[in-house]
């Protein structure tokens, strides 16, 4: 039973976000949904209500009514959701609130990351310490075919814990993907014996992959994929694989092995949550 916190920005994209959330509730049993909206003008004024003239009700009430109405149109039952309007205190207080709230999964629309309220969610998704699902507004989510890119770091362990821990989350197929590189330290020699080195790196990666899959998913079949990155970036390889193999969802750790500062998002994850990558991504923190 999960509790979802959905971030809305009052653009027309909100309806596709709700559509996606609706689909999630059909696939898994969801205990509670929070529709959260952050009133951006709180950053430029102390008194949000006097910022707009002739409102006939306090702003948060107006927005609450609007969101409630939309949610009901999508068939959410009033007892199952709450609407949260964050109107003062800035991003910091919102982040604090989210991190300490009972919600265990946040949902963002991908479009909003770099356009519209980009400031807000770009920053918020870095500071929130809960798993975040980025859905695309132009596609409908499904959870049958799941791709798990891994570097076998401790973030991968968190990903596994999440997949195994969600009671109703039963994807039909799981594919574990590892993108390997030939270490740049071999650079001066690479031209002479590159095939050899790639083979070696692959054998090493296979060993790790077998270990990872057997340990993480002992009782189920998981497809194992090893791909040599070559000239491409890891993020591109992952995205290309996901699209060509019709993956529904990418689940990955917020970062790989390179850096342990949990505030920043690793470059691979950062790239995959960009809006030009038209695929839902679940980032595990």
């Amino acid at each position, binding site marked *: 039973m999960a509790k979802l916190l959905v971030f809305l920005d009052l653009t027309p994209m909100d309806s596709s976000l709700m559509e996606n959330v609706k689909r999630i509730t059909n696939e898994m049993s969801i205990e509670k949904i929070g529709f959260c909206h952050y009133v951006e003008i709180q*950053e430029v004024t102390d008194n949000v209500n006097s910022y*707009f003239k002739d409102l006939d009700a306090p*702003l948060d009430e107006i927005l609450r009514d609007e969101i409630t109405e939309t949610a009901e149109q999508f068939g959410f039952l009033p007892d199952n959701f709450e609407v949260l309007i964050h109107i003062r205190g800035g991003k910091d207080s919102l982040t604090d609130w989210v991190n300490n709230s009972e919600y265990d999964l946040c949902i963002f629309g991908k479009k909003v990351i770099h356009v*519209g309220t980009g400031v807000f969610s*770009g*920053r918020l998704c870095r500071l929130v310490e809960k798993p975040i699902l980025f859905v695309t507004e132009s596609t409908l989510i499904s959870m049958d075919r799941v791709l798990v890119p891994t570097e076998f770091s401790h973030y991968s362990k968190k990903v596994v814990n999440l997949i195994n821990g969600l009671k109703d989350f039963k994807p039909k197929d799981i594919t574990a993907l590892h993108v390997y590189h030939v270490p740049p330290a071999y650079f001066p020699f690479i031209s002479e014996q590159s095939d050899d080195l790639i083979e070696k790196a692959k054998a090493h990666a296979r060993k790790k992959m077998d270990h990872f899959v057997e340990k993480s998913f002992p009782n189920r079949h998981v497809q194992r994929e090893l791909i040599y990155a070559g000239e491409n970036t890891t993020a591109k390889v992952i995205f290309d694989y996901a699209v060509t193999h019709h993956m529904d969802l990418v689940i990955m750790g917020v970062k790989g092995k390179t850096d342990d*500062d949990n505030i920043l998002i690793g470059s691979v994850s950062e790239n995959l949550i960009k809006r030009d990558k038209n695929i839902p991504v679940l980032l595990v923190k």
Partner: protein
Amino acid sequence: MAKAKKKYFDVHGPVFWPASVLIVVFIATTLIVGEPMERVFGNIQDGISNYTGWFLVIAVNVFLFFCIFVGFSKFGSIKLGGENAEPEFTKGAWFAMLFSAGMGIGVIFWGVAEPMYHFTHPPIPQEDEVLRMEQAMNFTFLHWGMHAWGIYALVGLSLAYFTFSRKLPLTIRSVFYPILKEKIYGWPGDIIDVLAVLATLFGLATSLGFGVQQVSSGLNYLLGWPDSTLTQILLILGITLIATTSVVLGINKGVKFLSELNIRVAGLFLIFMLIVGPTLFIFDSFIQNIGDYFQKFFEVSFWTEAYSRSETVGWQNSWTLFYWAWWISWSPFVGMFIARVSKGRTVREFVMGVLLVPTLLTFLWMTTFGGSGLWVEINNPGLISESVIDNVSTSLFVLLKQFPLTTITSAIGVVLVINFFVTSSDSGSLVIDSITAGGKLDAPVGQRIFWALTEGGVAAVLLVGGGLTALQTAAITTGLPFTFVLILMMYSLLKGLQKEHAMNIKSEKEADVEKYSERVKQIAEKRKTKEKV
């Protein structure tokens, strides 16, 4: 900053007492053991330099490159004090203050003596006189150049960031917040601060020791007073008393006046020398020295005497390593000063300003005084070099003797050093006081007197226990442990800046807000009409 509560003494016990006890033990041991301490100091200095010399050399380079990296990385645009912080001082005033941070007893003491010493004892054997001069200036620039300021920039930047942006107390332990979290208020923080206090105190005492040696030989030259250890100790006593009196009387304005006067007088001194000295030679060599500095930058800054002949080995111990340790040991002092004046600057401005501004000034000073010294020496072989070998601190006065108005300029030189002594002692005790009082800036006067006296005491005791060697040993011994603190500091600062960067990701905020308001207005309109219907 918390307000001081108690009237005379308001200390943070776990830092104040260990630091004080260690210092008192040090003073007592040196006084009781007496003469043999000189050998002890010599052995300690040799030991540390021989075994850890390579480490100091690479560490100091890493500090400099780290600062340059941070300045030019994506963190460069982070503002010290938060996005909306405004600089407290105009750029001109800020430059002036960085200039003044670069001025001190050290440049006056070593300005003439150091290039002359390298000229007569070239670190890398060299027969040709011309090449020896080049080398002498090159090593002098190395010691007083960007490496020194890289160390200060690291400490200053860390302090400024954690004090202004993170609102932590102005003390060294605050810098370690990302590593230690709340533990900075516990014993790990105490240890760091004790190390910082010891390093600052001994670094400062070294500087004061140099100053008093110079005053003593100046008075000997002007008034014929005996230039002995006794004179030096009486001088320390006298000048320390002046410094403490100024503190007691609460003439902070007086000290401010003195330090401003100092900078002006030093500036005039420099201009005087530029004019009466070999002006063209100074300008020519200034340009050439800078070129040489960059050309040989890696060669000399990574040089460790690895392939030197046995008769020249050991040169680095008493020069480069001593300087690196000295700069490290009083980095809390300079760091706090440059941090204090740099609120509202971006990281990039800070790094560029701190690395370049004081360096260029010091280079000009060293070229003016050191270069003139070399110029005189070439024309009258032995004139200055003999005095340098005889007594390092007299070299300035021997140089001044070659030019007009000797008596006046020498007197100004002496007054300048005394004045620097007073202001360093005063501001030094302010810094140490702040660290031992848990970051308070307005701790009671009693404590500052205590620290001013201790600084004088340590400087005096070091002179008794072995003169120049003892001074250098003190700097090296306290500089080395503090090097480890600085290494951790780099990591901690990077962590802090990473977090800041994550918090600051922003785009065109105003346009966003406008679009947003538009949407909200539409919704409000829509609901209005709905309710009417």
